[in-house]
C-alpha cells in the first residue's frame, strides 16, 4: 500500500450549505479528498444542536452527529440573506466545483442563488440539492423528521412486532441515506463535467434513497401483491394461496442474542450451514432429532409451519445454552450462517475491526483529547487514508478564507461581522 494520502478528489472544492439533511454528502466528498468548506449562518448550523453530545454537555461545538458529519471540513460563517453575503458566496462559487444544499425547495432561487444563477457564474458548477422528497412534486414541501421520512420510504413497515405498531431503528438513517445518494449523484455529474466541462443540477430525494434500500419488498409486491410486514424475530416468506411461512432468525443465547438462518436449499450455503449447526448441537447431546435431517429437500413453498417449527425448536434450545462468542467462533470455523447481535461496546471492541485498522484517531485540540471515529469502509490500494480533520468550530476558518484567500482586510471582516454577515 502506497504511503500517499487519499486524494482522489484533490483540488475539488465543495461549498457545503446543507443542514442535518445533507451534511453527510459533503463529508463523503471530503473523505475522498475534496476541500470542503462548511458554510454556516453566523449563529451556527441547527445540526449543532443534535444530541448526543460530548461528555453529555449540550453545546454547539460538542454534538456527536455534527462531529461525524463534518469531519474533513473547514468552517466559515456567512449570512446568505444579506447582499454582502450573497456577493461573497457568488465569489466563492467562481472557483468552486460543487455546491451542496438541503434548503426547502425554492429557497435558493428566492435568494437569487438557484442553479440557473450559479451556472451563469460558473458553468462547471455542480449543485446538489438534498431534500426529503426532491425539488418538485406534490410532497416537495412536506416536512420530515427521521421517523416520518423512513416511514414514507417504506422502511418502517417492514420491521416490528406483530402485536405492536411497526417500528423504526433507534438511530436516524433518513438523511444519511439522502446524503449518500447525493454523493453518488454528485460523482456521476463530476465524471460528466471532467469529460465535457459541463456542470449540472443534482436533485436528490431521501425518500427514494430509502425506497431503494428495501431489498425485495417492492419486487415481492410487484410479483405477488403482498406487502411485507415486520414479523417480530422472524422472517416471513410470502406464499401465494397459503399463509406466510414464519422462520425464526433471532435467538436468545446465554449472554444476549444471535442471528441465525435455518432453512433449506433456496440460498447458497444454507444446506451446509444448517447441517453443521445440527452437528454442533448433536455433539452436546442436543437436537438428536435433526441427526441426518434431509436439509436439501426443504421447499419453502410447501413446507408446513409445524415441520419448520419442529426443526427450529431443538436449535433454539441448543443456542440457549451457549454464549455469543462460543457460537460465533464455531460458526466462523464451520461456515454456519450465524452472527452475534452486537452492542456498541462489542462493535468498538471487535478484533476484526482492529485488525482492519478501521478506527481513526482524530485530535480535538479544543477538548484536549483524541477521539476514535469509525473510519473509511473501503481500503484503496493506491492510498493510505489521509489524516483527518475534525469538524470545524463555528467560524473557525473565517480568517483563513476571508482574509487569506479572498483578500478582505481585517477592517472589512470586522465590518461584515458587525453587520451580521459573517
Amino acid at each position: 500500500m502506497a504511503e500517499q494520502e487519499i486524494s482522489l478528489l484533490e483540488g475539488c472544492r465543495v461549498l457545503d450549505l446543507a443542514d442535518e439533511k445533507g451534511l453527510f454528502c459533503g463529508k463523503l466528498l471530503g473523505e475522498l479528498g475534496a476541500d470542503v468548506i462548511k458554510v454556516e449562518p453566523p449563529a451556527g448550523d441547527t445540526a449543532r444542536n443534535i444530541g448526543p453530545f460530548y461528555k453529555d454537555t449540550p453545546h454547539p461545538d460538542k454534538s456527536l452527529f455534527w462531529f461525524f458529519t463534518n469531519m474533513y471540513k473547514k468552517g466559515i460563517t456567512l449570512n446568505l440573506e444579506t447582499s454582502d453575503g450573497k456577493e461573497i458566496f457568488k465569489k466563492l462559487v467562481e472557483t468552486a466545483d460543487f455546491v451542496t444544499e438541503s434548503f426547502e425547495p425554492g429557497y435558493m432561487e428566492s435568494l437569487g442563488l438557484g442553479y440557473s444563477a450559479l451556472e451563469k457564474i460558473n458553468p462547471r458548477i455542480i449543485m446538489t440539492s438534498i431534500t426529503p422528497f426532491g425539488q418538485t412534486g406534490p410532497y416537495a414541501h412536506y416536512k420530515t423528521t427521521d421517523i416520518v421520512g423512513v416511514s414514507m420510504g417504506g422502511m418502517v413497515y417492514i420491521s416490528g412486532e406483530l402485536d405492536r405498531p411497526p417500528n423504526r431503528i433507534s438511530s436516524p438513517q433518513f438523511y444519511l441515506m439522502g446524503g449518500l445518494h447525493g454523493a453518488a449523484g454528485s460523482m456521476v455529474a463530476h465524471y460528466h463535467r471532467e469529460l465535457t466541462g459541463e456542470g449540472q443540477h443534482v436533485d436528490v430525494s431521501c425518500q427514494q434513497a430509502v425506497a431503494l434500500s428495501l431489498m425485495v419488498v417492492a419486487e415481492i409486491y410487484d410479483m405477488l401483491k403482498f406487502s411485507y410486514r415486520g414479523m417480530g424475530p422472524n422472517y416471513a416468506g410470502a406464499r401465494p394461496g397459503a399463509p406466510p411461512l414464519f422462520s425464526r432468525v433471532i435467538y436468545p443465547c446465554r449472554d444476549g442474542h444471535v442471528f441465525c438462518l435455518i432453512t433449506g436449499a433456496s440460498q447458497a450455503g444454507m444446506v451446509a450451514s444448517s447441517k453443521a449447526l445440527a452437528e454442533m448441537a448433536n455433539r452436546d447431546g442436543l437436537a438428536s432429532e435433526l441427526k441426518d435431517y434431509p436439509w436439501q429437500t426443504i421447499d419453502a413453498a410447501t413446507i408446513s409451519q409445524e415441520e419448520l417449527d419442529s426443526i427450529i425448536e431443538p436449535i433454539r434450545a441448543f443456542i440457549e445454552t451457549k454464549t455469543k462468542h462460543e457460537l460465533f467462533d464455531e460458526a466462523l470455523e464451520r461456515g454456519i450462517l450465524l452472527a452475534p447481535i452486537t452492542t456498541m461496546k462489542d462493535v468498538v471492541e471487535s478484533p476484526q475491526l482492529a485488525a482492519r485498522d478501521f478506527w481513526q484517531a482524530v485530535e480535538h485540540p479544543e477538548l484536549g483529547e483524541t477521539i476514535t471515529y469509525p473510519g473509511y469502509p473501503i481500503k484503496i490500494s493506491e492510498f493510505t487514508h489521509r489524516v483527518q480533520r475534525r469538524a470545524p468550530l463555528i467560524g473557525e476558518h473565517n480568517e483563513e478564507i476571508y482574509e487569506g484567500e479572498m483578500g478582505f482586510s481585517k477592517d472589512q471582516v470586522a465590518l461584515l461581522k458587525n453587520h451580521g454577515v459573517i
Partner: protein
Amino acid sequence: MSRQVFEGVKVADFSWVAVGPQVARELAFHGATVVRVECHRWPETTRTAGPFKDGVTGINRSAFATAYNTNKYGISLDLNMPRGQELARKLVRWADIVTDSMSPGAMAKWGLDYESCKKIKPDIIYYSTCQMGQHGPYCRFKGYGMLGVSYAGYCHLNGWPDRDPLPFFNNHSDFISPYYLATALIAALLYRRKTGRGMYLDQSQVEVGINFLAPLVLDYVVNKRIACRMGNRDMYIAPHALFPCRGSDRWVAIAITGELEWHSFCNVIGQPEWTRDTRFNTLLGRKENEDELERLIAEWTLGRTATQVMHMLQEVGIPAGVVQTAEDLFNDPQLKYREHFRYLEHKVIGVHAYHSPAYKLSKTPCEIRKAGPCLGEDNEHVYKNILGLSDDEIADLLIEGVITTETDMPEVLRDK
C-alpha cells in the same frame, strides 16, 4: 439520444447477490457497458430465493435476480473449467472495471483476483466487497447482509426495550454499501484517466453499516453509553410515535419538534386546551407524560385514514407521514411524480417494475432501458461482438459445457 455519462466504460461484473451488482448497476444506469457473468451450475441466491413470477419457481422467474441488473448484459460461463477461465481473462482484458462480491479467496481460485487481473490488464480498476473485508481474523465470515447488520450493531437498536431485538428484512448494509463503493469507483475512473493507473478497492460492508450508526458509536466512545432500542421514541422529541389509523394495520408517523408545531398541532386536532394543560404545555411535561399523550392522540388518529392525518398536519407544517406499505409505494403520488418505478419487459417475467436512482441529473438523465437479463440471455451478443468469437467457437464451447445452458438448481426449485 444524448451521450450517456459512462458511455464507453466497460465492466466485467463477476459479482453476485445484492451489493456488488448494485454498484455496477449505478454505472449501467448512466450508459456503461456491463457484462454480468453467471453460471447455471451454481445459480446465484437471487435466482433461487424469489419472489418468483406467479409464485412459480424457475431460474429466470425471480424478480430478485433482475432487480440489481438493469441495463446489463448477461452471459453464462463455467469458471471451474479451464476454457471458462480463459474466456473470463478475455473479458478482463476488454474491461475497465472488474467486480467481485464473493467470499474472500473465491476469485483467486479462478485466477481472477486483483493481482491476476492486473497482470492481464495493468490499469484495471477492481473492487471487492464482502461482509468483513479481505483480511483480518473474521474475513472468512461467509454470509448475507442480515448477518452483517447483526454484527454491526443494528438489531440491538431495532425493536422494543422490553422485547428481543428485531432483524432487518432489508439487510440494511446491503443497500448503503453499493453507493459508498460507487462514489469511490467513479473517482478511481477519473484518477486513471489522469494518471493511467488502476487500483484495488476492498470494501467491508460491516464497516459501512457502522458508519451509519456513528453518533451512537461515538456516544459509547466518549460517554460510555451503550445505546439500546427504544421502540419508536426519540430522546429529544415528544410526541414521537406511530399512531393507529382507520383500516387494518394502518399507521401514521408524527413528530412534534417545537413549541410552534405543538400549538398548531393542538389546534388542528381540536384540542387547543392542551396548550394550557400542565401535563402537556411544556416539552418536559410532554416527555414525562408521553404514554398518556400518545394514548390521547391515538383517539384522534383512529377515526381518520393515515393519508388524511398526514395531509391535515402537513398543511400546517407539522412533520407527519404515512407508514407506507409496499403497495403504498406504488401508489405514492410523489414517487409517481419522480417516476421512481419504471416498467421494463423481461423475456420470462413480462413487464415488471424497476427502481430508478434517487437523484435526478438535470442535463444527463439516466436511461433505464433493459430488464435484468435471463441467465445467458446475451451470450450471442457478448461472445460474438464483444469477445470476437466465431460461430464455430461458440458452438464448441456450448457442446463442451463451458458456456452453460443446463440448470443445476436444487430439485425443489427446478422449473415446474
